């Protein structure tokens, strides 16, 4: 398998979902079963191909990166900018190979799951088309080797998430959520765009490799490290928007309005991971402060969302906030420099979080049927308080859900443990090296919280007895198409896939394949060197493991005591910490804050401008209008009556216009001009004044009649005279004209012979 075929294969993988999309968007009504088999088939084919690429990449070309570039547009050399060329292309290295597999696995299984879940949906075919376009754009982000294409696919991913969230656009909340997601993403994207533009302005290219090389050779944006950090942070803004980090995380929970498989695919595994992937891709250019900033943002996000997740009652809201917190984790991991760990967590998280969402989807699906069956339409199938005791009813869903929960809370023998442990070790090392102790503390605290709210979820939903037996006795296990993906994800959550030793991931193939790229940033601002970090990491490894186990165990214990053995009544605790609870329940009032700050702000600003426009500008215009009218009316009447007062009145207006003319002349004079020009302008002003005076003095009647009309009549007369002359010649017959033409030609010939 030569490199060319790998590149061709990856291009095929990229374009397959697009093919699915185009076929489905046009023909879904005509295809049997609205083309779901087509889309799923294409995705499984893409999955197979990506596995092939992955295997070949890993086996025979482990440490090589293949690139294929082509110039899309060549602007030649643009004045003031130099030669401008838009070079696009794709790149296949280990990062890409793994991400290809991850995206395709999740996407394929989500497709399979959606066949069952979305059965009978009103826009069934179109849903699969949107899944296709989403997978295509996600693969686009993964596979590209330059910022430009990444930005294009970034927008496409945003678009497809908008389409998928707003799938049931009849519901107002769904369409609002879609709009919110899109707008918030756009805010992040603006940051990213400016970051990319800074890079483009300095390096005249978008391709990563060329940028990093030129950066290595010393030239950095606008010659200052500050700008380099700024660029790094701005690009990270894109990640904040897309991966729902701290300030822009508000859209992800609302995005739960979309169908659950969508949430599984987009809001658990792939799209949100795009932000993390962006950081991983742009890692070499990140300066120390940029990484610090990233780490803090990640930590804050993780902390906030973990606290909110505790108080949520909707199963999908809980999972959404857990996703945000896990993303915070990954970003923190990358921020602290644990590059491989962060990326590893991305991969493992993608697996079990997708599983979690699909599990919750199958629960909701079953609850929906049961409630439907029971004819009870008003209880919310997604509220966990209406669930309970589903263990016996839905065994497969229960066991897979349990495995995922173990993975996410970082219990040994699961992939989650490996990745979370590495990140926590990284944070510890970072803390010890740079003294920012707060990061590891938040890290461990959030790990505990995660374990707590995940097990709370599992217990409330699956264990115990259901209060109203009648309502849920119709619950059935979900059909085969829904349980298979669950089982596959459960399998993928085991440690075996990633490293032979359940406790240390370092020995696995993953850590061998992915290495932290050499930072190209000038040493002054570079972050902690790789060797020092590795060595510090080694020390904190065992400590991190112990700490994380204790914290996780603690969280699980508390969850069991409160919800399973009902020793501590959750409500009592909630009442005691009333203000805190309501604070968490209402998502730290972020939505309200934004509403007040941004939306209100713009409205206010708009009102201010409106006032300014009406009062000031219109005022001036009307004023001038009324002023001239007054003048002319005044003169006309006075002129006819010939009263002294009018002459006096005229004098005054004359003087005023004289003065105004002079001032205008002087004002127009450019600064520092010579005396001559000043006098010239003065004279100009005077002339204008004199003219206005003369006009008004003579009055509208006299001058206008005799001079102006005179001219007009004269021209009319002239035209008439000429017309008479040529009438005789014009006989209206084409022939005579031709004759004249010929005469002309002859004269022409004779003249120029």
């Amino acid at each position, binding site marked *: 398998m030569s490199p060319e075929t790998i590149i061709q294969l990856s291009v095929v993988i990229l374009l397959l979902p697009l093919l699915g999309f185009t076929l489905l968007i046009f023909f879904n009504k005509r295809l049997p079963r609205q083309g779901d088999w087509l889309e799923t088939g294409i995705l499984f084919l893409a999955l197979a191909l990506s596995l092939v690429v992955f295997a070949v990449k890993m086996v025979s070309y482990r440490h090589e990166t293949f690139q294929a570039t082509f110039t899309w547009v060549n602007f030649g050399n643009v004045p003031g900018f130099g030669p401008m060329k838009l070079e696009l292309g794709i790149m296949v290295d280990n990062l890409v190979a793994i991400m290809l597999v991850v995206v395709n696995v999740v996407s394929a299984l989500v497709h399979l799951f959606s066949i069952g879940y979305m059965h009978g949906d009103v826009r069934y075919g179109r849903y699969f088309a949107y899944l296709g376009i989403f997978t295509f754009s996600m693969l686009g982000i993964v596979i590209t080797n330059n910022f430009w294409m990444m930005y294009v696919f970034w927008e496409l991913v945003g678009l497809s998430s908008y389409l998928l969230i707003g799938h049931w656009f009849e519901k107002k909340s769904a369409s609002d959520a879609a709009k919110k997601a899109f707008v918030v993403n756009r805010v992040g994207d603006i940051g990213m765009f400016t970051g990319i533009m800074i890079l483009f302005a300095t390096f005249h290219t978008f391709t990563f490799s060329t940028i990093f090389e030129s950066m290595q050779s010393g030239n950095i944006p606008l010659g200052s490290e500050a700008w380099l950090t700024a660029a790094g942070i701005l690009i990270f803004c894109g990640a904040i928007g897309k991966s729902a980090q701290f300030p822009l995380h508000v859209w992800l929970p609302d995005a739960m309005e979309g169908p659950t498989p969508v949430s599984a695919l987009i809001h658990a595994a792939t799209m949100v991971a795009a932000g993390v992937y962006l950081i991983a891709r742009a890692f070499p250019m990140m300066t120390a402060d940029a990484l610090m900033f990233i780490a803090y943002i990640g930590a804050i996000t993780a902390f906030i969302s973990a606290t909110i997740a505790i108080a949520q009652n909707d199963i999908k809201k809980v999972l959404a906030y857990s996703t945000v917190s896990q993303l915070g984790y990954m970003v923190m991991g990358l921020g602290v420099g644990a590059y491989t760990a962060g990326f590893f967590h991305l991969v493992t998280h993608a697996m079990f979080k997708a599983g979690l969402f699909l599990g919750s989807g199958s629960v909701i699906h079953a609850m929906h049927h049961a409630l439907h069956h029971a004819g009870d339409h008003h209880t919310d199938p997604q509220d966990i308080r209406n669930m309970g005791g589903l263990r016996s009813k839905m065994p497969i869903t229960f066991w897979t859900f349990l495995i995922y929960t173990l993975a996410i809370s970082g219990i040994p023998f699961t992939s989650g443990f490996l990745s979370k442990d590495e990140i926590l070790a990284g944070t510890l090392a970072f803390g010890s090296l740079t003294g920012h102790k707060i990061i590891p503390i938040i890290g461990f605290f959030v790990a505990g919280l995660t374990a707590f709210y995940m097990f709370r979820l599992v217990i409330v939903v699956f264990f115990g007895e259901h209060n109203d037996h009648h309502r849920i006795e119709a619950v059935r296990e979900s059909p085969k198409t829904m349980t298979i993906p669950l089982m596959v994800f459960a399998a993928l959550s085991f440690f075996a896939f990633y490293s032979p030793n359940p406790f240390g991931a370092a020995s696995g193939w993953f850590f061998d394949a992915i290495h932290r790229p050499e930072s190209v940033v000038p040493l002054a601002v570079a972050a902690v060197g790789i060797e020092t970090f590795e060595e510090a990491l080694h020390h904190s490894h065992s400590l991190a493991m112990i700490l994380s186990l204790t914290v996780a165990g603690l969280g699980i214990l508390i969850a069991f005591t409160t919800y399973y053995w009902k020793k501590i009544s959750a409500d009592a605790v909630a009442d005691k910490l009333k203000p805190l609870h309501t604070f968490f329940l209402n998502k730290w009032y972020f939505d309200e804050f934004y509403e007040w700050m941004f939306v209100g702000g713009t409205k206010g600003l708009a009102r201010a401008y409106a006032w300014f426009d009406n009062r000031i500008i219109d005022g001036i215009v009307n004023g001038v209008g009324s002023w001239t009218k007054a003048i002319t009316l005044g003169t006309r009447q006075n002129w006819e009556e010939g009263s002294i007062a009018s002459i006096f009145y005229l004098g005054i207006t004359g003087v005023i216009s004289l003065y105004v003319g002079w001032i205008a002349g002087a004002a127009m004079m450019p600064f520092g001009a010579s005396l001559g020009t000043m006098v010239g302008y003065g004279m100009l002003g005077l002339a204008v004044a004199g003219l206005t005076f003369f006009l008004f003095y003579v009055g509208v009647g006299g001058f206008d009649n005799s001079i102006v009309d005179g001219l007009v009549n004269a021209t009319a007369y002239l035209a008439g005279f000429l017309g008479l002359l040529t009438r005789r010649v014009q006989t209206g017959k084409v*022939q005579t004209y031709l004759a004249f033409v010929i005469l002309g030609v002859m004269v022409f010939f004779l003249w120029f012979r």
Partner: protein
Amino acid sequence: MQDFIHWLQAPGLNHFLIISGILFSLGVFAILTRRNAIMVLMGIELVLNAANINFIAFSRYITNTLDGQVIAIFVIILAAAEAAIALAIVLNIFQNFNTVNVDELNQLRD
């Protein structure tokens, strides 16, 4: 007289030009004098053919490249298109005015 006969013996560029000149003037005469619209059209065809002869004569005798002939092809194409449109118009006039006599067609409205 003698050299005239010699001139006659060797048909060169001038001969073709003279023929095209005569053809051209005949065409113009047809346009000028004939009353029937279709006759005028025929006159136009004659004029165009005269022009074509010149094109090819020059391309054959002077420039020796084929540009003249390509232009001649375009002239033929356009003549065809023009003839089609002209005849369509003449037909329409005939339907509305019942005459194709150029002089009688002096109203704009039917």
